């Protein structure tokens, strides 16, 4: 498959981004460097192109009942204009994807899915929509662009671009029609960094104008800069947010990833995978997800084995150097007896054992103003 450009490819070239192929998309992995981009996101603000993410609309009188069957979280209390996070599972409890669900109306929802899973998810959603429910699905990923403005300066950056008081928008809420720099957008107070911020959706054809307008509104005045996939991965890892393919997969259930609060066994319409997850809850998952920090030198990376003494007890699911903590950290799946904060373990880095400490997730939590 030939790698695709997002509608913002030209912007990335102009800003000297280092381009990589990320699950079929040509995207910047970094601009000035991951460390400065991470620091900027924590202190000021950064702008990401996340147009590779998939968007699927779910409409019709049966939309809510249909989604209740598909996703593990309970949508019955979700209000118009609110956003909820949820995994969706296979019948065996493995994870299809983890997504955001936007409720426009009782009969209209938008799902935002992981880029690498868009085709798979859409096929899965279609397959389960065929049993007589009045629901219509549309994959609008290609025509939809998305940028993520993240960092404490985000509200101040957007305020001159719109008459709408976006600073008042509550966390995990959205406004379906906001004019930003003259462009019709959907704006939600969401993100994948552990910081305050917004995710902004618009028509692909207008993404370049929107990007440039946001950049000019923030660059000089508030220290905004572009950030790439590298910083995005570090930020989400510091904030303890799972990434599909690492902390969730067809073999890794939401319960293993510690996402119990997003799995509702009590909702009226049972979700796909409920029985398997109930059983997993009863016997306990074989592995549990924890945070790890490295005590000395060295960087832990995905796939490195974790040991207690000589016994291998798990693996690192994601690992990096953290500019925020100035040491290496990550997440790991461990046998439950050792998945306890404070536990001192070892990670094998190129054949040598390095001491690590088990930590609670998330490692980073922003101080709310």
């Amino acid at each position, binding site marked *: 498959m030939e790698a695709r450009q997002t509608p913002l490819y030209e912007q990335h070239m102009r800003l000297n981004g280092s381009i990589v192929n990320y699950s079929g998309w040509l995207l910047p992995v970094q601009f000035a460097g991951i460390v400065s981009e991470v620091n900027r996101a924590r202190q000021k603000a950064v702008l990401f192109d996340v147009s590779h993410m998939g968007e699927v609309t779910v409409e019709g009188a049966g939309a809510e009942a249909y989604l209740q069957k598909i996703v593990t979280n309970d949508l019955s209390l979700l209000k118009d204009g609110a956003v909820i996070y949820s995994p969706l599972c296979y019948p065996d409890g493995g994870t299809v994807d983890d997504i955001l669900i936007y409720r426009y109306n009782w009969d209209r929802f938008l799902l935002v899915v992981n880029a690498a899973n868009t085709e798979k998810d859409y096929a899965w959603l279609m397959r389960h929509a065929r049993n007589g429910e009045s629901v219509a699905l549309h994959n609008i990923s290609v025509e939809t662009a998305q940028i993520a403005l993240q960092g404490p300066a985000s509200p101040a950056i957007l305020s001159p671009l719109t008459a709408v008081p976006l600073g008042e928008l509550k966390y995990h809420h959205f406004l379906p029609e906001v004019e930003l720099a003259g462009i019709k957008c959907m704006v939600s107070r969401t993100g994948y960094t552990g910081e305050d911020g917004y995710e902004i959706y618009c028509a692909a054809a207008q993404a370049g104008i929107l990007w440039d307008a946001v950049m000019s509104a923030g660059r000089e005045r508030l220290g905004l800069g572009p950030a790439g996939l590298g910083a995005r*991965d570090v930020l989400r890892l510091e904030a303890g947010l799972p990434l599909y393919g690492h902390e969730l997969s067809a073999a890794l259930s939401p319960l293993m990833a510690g996402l119990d609060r997003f799995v509702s066994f009590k909702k009226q319409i049972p979700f796909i995978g409920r029985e398997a997850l109930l059983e997993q809850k009863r016997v306990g998952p074989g592995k549990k997800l924890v945070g790890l920090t490295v005590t000395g030198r060295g*960087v832990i990376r995905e796939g490195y084995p974790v040991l207690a003494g000589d016994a291998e007890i798990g693996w690192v699911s994601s690992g990096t150097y953290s500019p925020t903590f100035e040491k290496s950290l990550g997440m790991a799946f461990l046998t439950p007896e050792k998945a306890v904060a404070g536990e001192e373990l070892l990670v094998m880095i190129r054949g040598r054992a390095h001491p690590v400490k088990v930590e609670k997730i998330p490692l980073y939590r922003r101080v709310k103003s």
Partner: protein
Amino acid sequence: MKWEVREGLLYTPKHEWIKQDGSEVTSGITDYAQDMLKDIVYVELPELGRVVKAGESVAVIESVKAVSDAYSPVDGVIKAVNELLLDQPELLNQDPYGAGWIVKVEIAAGYVNPDLMDMKAYITLLEREEES
């Protein structure tokens, strides 16, 4: 060109530089290499006295995102390592041809350098990189 290349050094296709001084070579990574890696956060160095072959990994360089190797430019024995890099890995970014040197290798008797690039040849290689 945006990367610095120094006269008097030899270069490998893997973007390492070599300075020969009698039977000893000093080596490190080039300005281009450090710019590609950016933000170097850890360096692992070889033990003194280790016998190495040309092209064998002698040091591990970790940037935020990736792990890369630095290779021995010659057959020989590790004579010195730059221990400053253990606490100041950023020297590799700041001064790759100077304070950011990585190892010194005593060249094995009878070892003949393969075709390493001089400054001019290395610049040509980088210009091709810049265009692609």
